[in-house]
């Protein structure tokens, strides 16, 4: 784990990168990192996240700045700009049931090729997917997702990169932290090593590549 300045962290992300971004309607999204991506004018990003929040919040900022060419998300209903870009063909949107999305990300982080779920069977979600029958029940095979970068926001981080999250700001963060080649973390508080009890660490330090300095 290395500690880096915000600017330096975001400079590592090339145009065209695949990003996973923590957060749920902006809650638990690393806003500083998102702001810096907008400032540096990144383009053609693929963003994997729960939702696109609202204009001006979280992933919504990346939509408004036209940084995203493809979004893999479960919900865009509260961001009219996402809907517009999708309808106008400016951005591709792959809609994934929320429970399937988080399991596909988890599978990527856990070295699983995919999971079987009944969610989506018999709906438009099953299109182009392999169906597998186990003990007489039909499931969709949902395959693993991986990213180049995970952008996570924690409540506490320590000097070796251990992260703990607060309440509903946890959401996708610990899961995306496992599924990306490079993990960039931002935290509300950076505390000395040992301050976070072992049982309260949700993302172990060795998983985190870069911690953004205050």
């Amino acid at each position, binding site marked *: 784990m290395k500690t880096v300045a915000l600017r330096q962290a975001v400079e590592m992300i090339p145009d065209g990168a695949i990003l996973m971004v923590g957060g749920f*309607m902006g809650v638990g999204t690393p806003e500083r990192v998102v702001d810096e991506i907008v400032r540096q004018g990144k383009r053609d990003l693929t963003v994997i996240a729960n939702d696109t929040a609202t204009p001006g919040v979280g992933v919504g900022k990346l939509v408004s700045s036209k940084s995203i060419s493809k979004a893999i998300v*479960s919900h865009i209903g509260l961001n009219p700009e996402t809907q517009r870009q999708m309808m106008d063909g400016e951005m591709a949107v792959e809609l994934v*049931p929320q*429970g399937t999305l988080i399991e596909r990300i988890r599978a990527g982080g856990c070295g699983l090729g995919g999971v079987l779920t*009944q969610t989506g069977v*018999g*709906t438009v979600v099953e299109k182009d997917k392999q169906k597998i029958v186990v003990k007489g029940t039909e499931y969709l095979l949902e395959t693993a997702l991986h990213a180049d970068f995970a952008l996570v926001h924690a409540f506490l981080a320590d000097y070796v990169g251990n992260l703990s999250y607060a*309440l*509903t*700001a946890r959401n996708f963060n610990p899961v995306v932290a496992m599924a990306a080649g490079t993990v960039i973390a931002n935290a509300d508080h950076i505390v000395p090593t040992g301050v976070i009890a072992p049982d309260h660490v949700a993302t172990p330090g060795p998983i985190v590549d870069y911690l953004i300095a205050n």
Partner: protein
Amino acid sequence: MNAQAIIAKRIARELRSGMLVNLGIGIPTMVASYVPGDIHVFFQSENGLIGTGPIPEQGMAHPTLTDAGGHPVTALPGASSFDSAMSFALIRGGHLDLTVLGGLQVDQTGRLANWMIPGKMIPGMGGAMDLVSGAKRVIVAMQHTAKGRSKIVGKCTLPLTSTRPVDMVVSELAVIIFHNGSATLSETAPGVSVDDVIAATQAQLKIPKDVREMQL
């Protein structure tokens, strides 16, 4: 009482102590306001909380304690918080006793469509497909008609949320129960006749002898 209040109040009567319940946005959220005082229900919010409480007092909101819409809530004593994988493990894994969702259409066999209107509104399914596929019991809270047209139809024309049939629809006119592929009129709202419901419903309804009046 307006239509939404009738629906929410009636659904609240389905709650039992100890149940784990997920409420969707809109009318379903209002169900929490009518929980009988003598029972304790665990409300799950799919963004990662069990034990969601009311809106916080002025000045006491915290950015890390929110509902699925990102708005401030409180956590009751005994609350627990978790990541999204766990939240949907609870939902998909059959640990949720009841989910209450809004609906665009429900067909005669109980199949729900509630996540998109092609060409018009594509908000995404969010957690709806997992909730309907995974919860032990599914209740749809919706007004009986939209622009004069029945939302309880012979066959859904909108994309399905799940092939798993819902258990019950509660509208401002009636309670309809789905079982073995057919729809049965179970209760009518105060002042509403069986014929009123039949007239407002496109789907074929079974009408038993003992259609009761909704208790609110």
